[in-house]
């Protein structure tokens, strides 16, 4: 299966084939190191947290790329770098032909209309002192899209209805709503500027299972209706499998495996991906009784002082001597299936 038609065979995606081939975002060798300083007045840099350490991937138009990994693997930092909320240490983020890391502030503000974000926590990502209508209307006002307040209110109500909320909610405050409703407000706010590309950073992780399915369906409907492209960041492997076309697995600042969704889940090659998939409990007691519960040893090392060579080697079952010395090449083993492991 080629990457071009991979997306259209799955789900009821309405995206045309012609558009799918185009690359929307191209991330090249992105690095984000956070300095650790000592000293009160003049901070001396004593160490660096290598949150993202040289990752490359691209996202096609209309595609949903999943970014999966455990806490601290750098998936959120990657999203923040694309949004230019962090100034990347090195690397390029090419969005429609332009490198966002080098874009002047003014031009970046224009691009920002096209790139939006939905955050994880629906409790802290909405200003508790603002009414829902103002929260959703603010980006429209700031970007001067609809200057007329009456018209703007109309648009806000439209957006609320689009996200399955009662338009009357515009006069409510966030604390008057449930978690699922708040997350719908977060989605409506992200849609307010008619974006092309939305970064969903753990967008459904804080929700209860029955509500989670509602929001996942909403995100999928919107993707089809507005031909949106998603970068879907999550630690939940079952949700990623459901919603994504391609999936990148991150570990300690590196992408260790990247493939078409079905290929990755049916034929995981990197030992970390395998360990991750084996660790997810499956809601079927009969299957669970038959599964071997091999548990990956140890914990994720500190990104301040990551292991030499392959970052996964201290926990890896396949590790050989050379793994602690040589950084494995991120290579294409099959068309579209990339792995950073010398032993597969």
């Amino acid at each position, binding site marked *: 299966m080629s990457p071009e038609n991979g997306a259209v065979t799955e789900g009821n995606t309405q995206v045309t084939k012609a558009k799918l081939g185009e690359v929307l975002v191209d991330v090249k060798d992105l690095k984000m190191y956070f300095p650790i300083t000592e000293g009160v007045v003049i901070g001396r840099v004593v160490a660096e947290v290598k949150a993202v350490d040289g990752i490359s991937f691209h996202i096609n138009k209309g595609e949903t790329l999943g970014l999966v990994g455990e806490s601290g693997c750098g998936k959120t930092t990657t999203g923040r770098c694309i949004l230019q909320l962090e100034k990347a240490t090195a690397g390029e983020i090419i969005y429609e032909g332009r490198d966002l890391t080098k874009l002047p502030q003014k031009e970046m503000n224009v691009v920002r209309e096209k790139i939006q974000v939905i955050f994880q926590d629906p409790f802290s990502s909405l200003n508790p002192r603002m009414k829902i209508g103002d929260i959703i209307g603010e980006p429209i006002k700031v970007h001067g899209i609809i200057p007329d307040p009456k018209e703007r209110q109309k648009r806000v109500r439209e957006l609320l209805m689009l996200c399955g909320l009662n338009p009357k909610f515009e006069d409510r405050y966030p604390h008057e709503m449930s978690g699922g409703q708040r997350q719908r407000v977060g989605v409506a706010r992200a849609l307010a500027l008619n974006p092309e590309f939305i970064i969903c950073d753990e967008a459904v992780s804080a929700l209860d299972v029955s509500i989670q399915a*509602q929001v996942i369906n909403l995100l999928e409907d919107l993707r089809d209706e507005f031909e949106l492209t998603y970068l879907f960041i999550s630690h939940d492997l079952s949700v990623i499998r459901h919603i994504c076309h391609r999936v990148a697995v991150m570990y300690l600042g590196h992408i260790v495996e990247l493939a078409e969704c079905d290929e990755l889940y049916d034929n995981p090659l990197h030992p970390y991906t395998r360990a991750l998939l084996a660790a997810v409990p499956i809601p079927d007691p009969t299957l669970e009784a038959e599964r071997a519960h091999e548990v990956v040893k140890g914990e994720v090392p500190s990104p301040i002082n990551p292991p030499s060579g392959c970052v996964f080697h201290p926990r890896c079952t396949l590790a050989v001597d050379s793994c602690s010395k040589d950084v494995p090449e991120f290579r294409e083993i099959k068309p579209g299936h990339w792995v950073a492991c010398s032993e597969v």
Partner: protein
Amino acid sequence: MATLLEIENLKTQFFTSAGTVRAVDGITYTVDEGETVALVGESGCGKSVSALSILRLIPWPPGKIVEGRITFDGVDLATLSEEEIRQIRGRDIGIVFQEPMTSLNPVLSINEQLSETLITHFGITKQEARAKALSLLEMVGISDPDRRLDQYPHHLSGGMRQRVMVAMALSCEPKLIIADEPTTALDVTIQAQILELMKELTNRLGASMIIITHNLGVVARYADRVNVMYAGKIIESGTAKDIYHNPQHPYTLALLNSIPRMDQPRKDKLDPVEGQPPDLTQLDDGCSFRPRCRFVQEGCAKSFPDLENVSESHFAACFEKGNLVEKTKVDS
């Protein structure tokens, strides 16, 4: 197997300015010796409150056990004095809380926290308690335990803190362990480590476990019997196989259908439970799930269906139990 814990018609309510919250509304279940029983449900369904009620950890005001019996090892915990229940907490019943960040005391070293329970319940000296604490840390797989004993919670990772919590819960070799969302805050590989550890240690001690979680996968992997809760009531109860292969309550069915499954082909669309869970201050006499139920009928508004047998081990509180499979076929 002998019954270790028997909960009968337990009702815990919170008296707030917004009205009386019927957090736990008449639940009945048992835990046998050596058995792992799961309480499953979404936030606010009363699963944690029901577990805290067992240990009488409900703060008054505003919360109170208003009715019911909690028979543990022949003793009714609901009638014990504060001093008597303290003898049981930590000794006969251990508890593992969800948040290892907030449930350990940040200003006490690991040694002090582990020793406290041991000294209280066994009256041993500090030196003896330290030696015991050391062996406990070894048992839960913490490397370099001697150094870790003198460290504070902030020195440890989330997974290690949860290991300390497990060590603390097991320190007095309890007969029952209550694990309240023990792995919800942890990463999936660490979750697997902690759950395997708890399973192994409870087996070794022959202890029973009540595991409270919203994760249906965790339940399928570790529980012998499952109680599904909704709005303060147990709406379905049975062995793990009963619940997962033959759900008889519309809520259980809907819950199982709403999660994305890794073991099944990908669906075009998920099948969510529409609507919101009810406000627990506004419950009426009818079934609390009926506004979200696909199988709702006239009788549902009049009275709450009793939890009745579907098979010998399997109970469901629904007028339509036994008919769900057929009805689903007709619908589609």
